[in-house]
């Protein structure tokens, strides 16, 4: 990766690749995830992208003990909604934190990605949820 982003030219190539192979997106529906299924992933945080409109968390882990750990990509709502609905902070998850994630998997089989339902920090037991409709509950202030 490092050699690829060595120059501004390489950055342009990356931007072109991104534009060519995928849509540059925005707020989107989550219907590519299967809301009838729920899975649990145990592993370590690699990185949380605290960005609008959808935060993503890269995790090295597995969904069952027999599976070799792999890189998973878990998507969720915006920082503003996570703060309001689930008590999140920008530093709620730090690289290296051991976590347990409950998520809706992608409909397409074999993809190591999903939509976050909740995440638990193993060290403290603190749980962060991600249902944007939870912010309508009274008494959050």
């Amino acid at each position, binding site marked *: *990766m*490092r*050699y690829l*982003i*060595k120059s501004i030219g390489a*950055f342009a190539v*990356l*931007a072109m*690749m*991104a534009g060519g*192979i*995928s*849509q*540059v*997106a*925005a*707020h*989107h*529906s*989550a*219907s*590519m*995830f*299967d809301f009838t299924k729920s899975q649990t992933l145990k592993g370590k945080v690699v*990185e949380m*992208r605290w*960005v*609008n*409109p*959808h935060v*993503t968390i*890269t995790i090295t882990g597995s969904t069952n003990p027999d599976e070799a750990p792999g890189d998973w*990509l878990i*998507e969720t*709502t*915006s*920082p*503003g*909604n996570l*703060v*309001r609905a689930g008590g999140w902070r920008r530093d709620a998850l730090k690289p290296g934190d051991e976590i347990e994630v409950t998520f809706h998997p992608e*409909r397409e089989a074999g993809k190591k*990605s999903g939509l976050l339902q909740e995440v638990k920090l193993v060290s403290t037991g603190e749980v962060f949820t991600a249902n*944007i*409709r939870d*912010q*309508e509950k009274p008494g*959050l*202030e």
Partner: protein
Amino acid sequence: MRVKSGPIGIASVAALALMLAPLIASAQAPQKAPTVINPPPTAQDWADIAKLPDWSGVWNPKISDQDAQIKTNPPPWNEAAAKKIAKMFVEEKAGRPFLVFSNCLPEALPSWMLVTHNAMEILFTPGRVTMLGDGNRIRRIYTDGRGHPETSDPTFHGHSIGHWEGDTLVIDTTDIVPEAPLAVSEAAGLPNNGDMHVIERIHLADKDILHDDLEIIAPNILTKPWKTTRIFFRQRARKFDIVEGVCATGDLVERVNADGDHVFVPVQKSEWGHTTAVPAK
């Protein structure tokens, strides 16, 4: 004027036209419009602001009500639009959601009010109401008595003029770009295709509940004006203050390049908009 058909006649007319040309040109030259100055607010203008209802704090959309209205109060789509919307619902159900808000363009008016999942705040200053939404959305509503511009200059949020009827802010918006979607969700919405007109009546329905009663006139996709209400609830906790949110960063990740510079690098997205791969550090 009758013109002789011979060469002399034509020459005479040409000469006459040359003589008259400067006069005609000066008669047709557009008059330079006088410059309209926005006057500096007076102490009384600021004092009048204090008489307006208290809309301070952060206003959050009631998303559960947005959800419900998809079924209970759908827009009166015309036949062609209804077919397209029905197809979008089928595609979304099948896991292939249409991207109504692609390329991080603004949700625009009226869809920002209709389907947003993000908070906003509303500021009063003399002659202006300004709405600021999480995600760097902005609406400017002129309450200084001006009308709509004579020459259309379409924008995502249109040209909004407002006035107060008691404690209700009445807003009239025109000049919205035809590409701006009329959306019922992030996966179902259509370009308004021009001539859209939005009338809103915004008022407190309770101490901490704000209602936006909308009337949406979109003659190219609706059979009649659509009336709907959107509900926002107030939060005052400082932990819920709106912070900067830039939609385009969703397509990027922060990295440090070989020169030690902090740069944004694209992530990979699916055609439906979700992130499918993030470049390793």
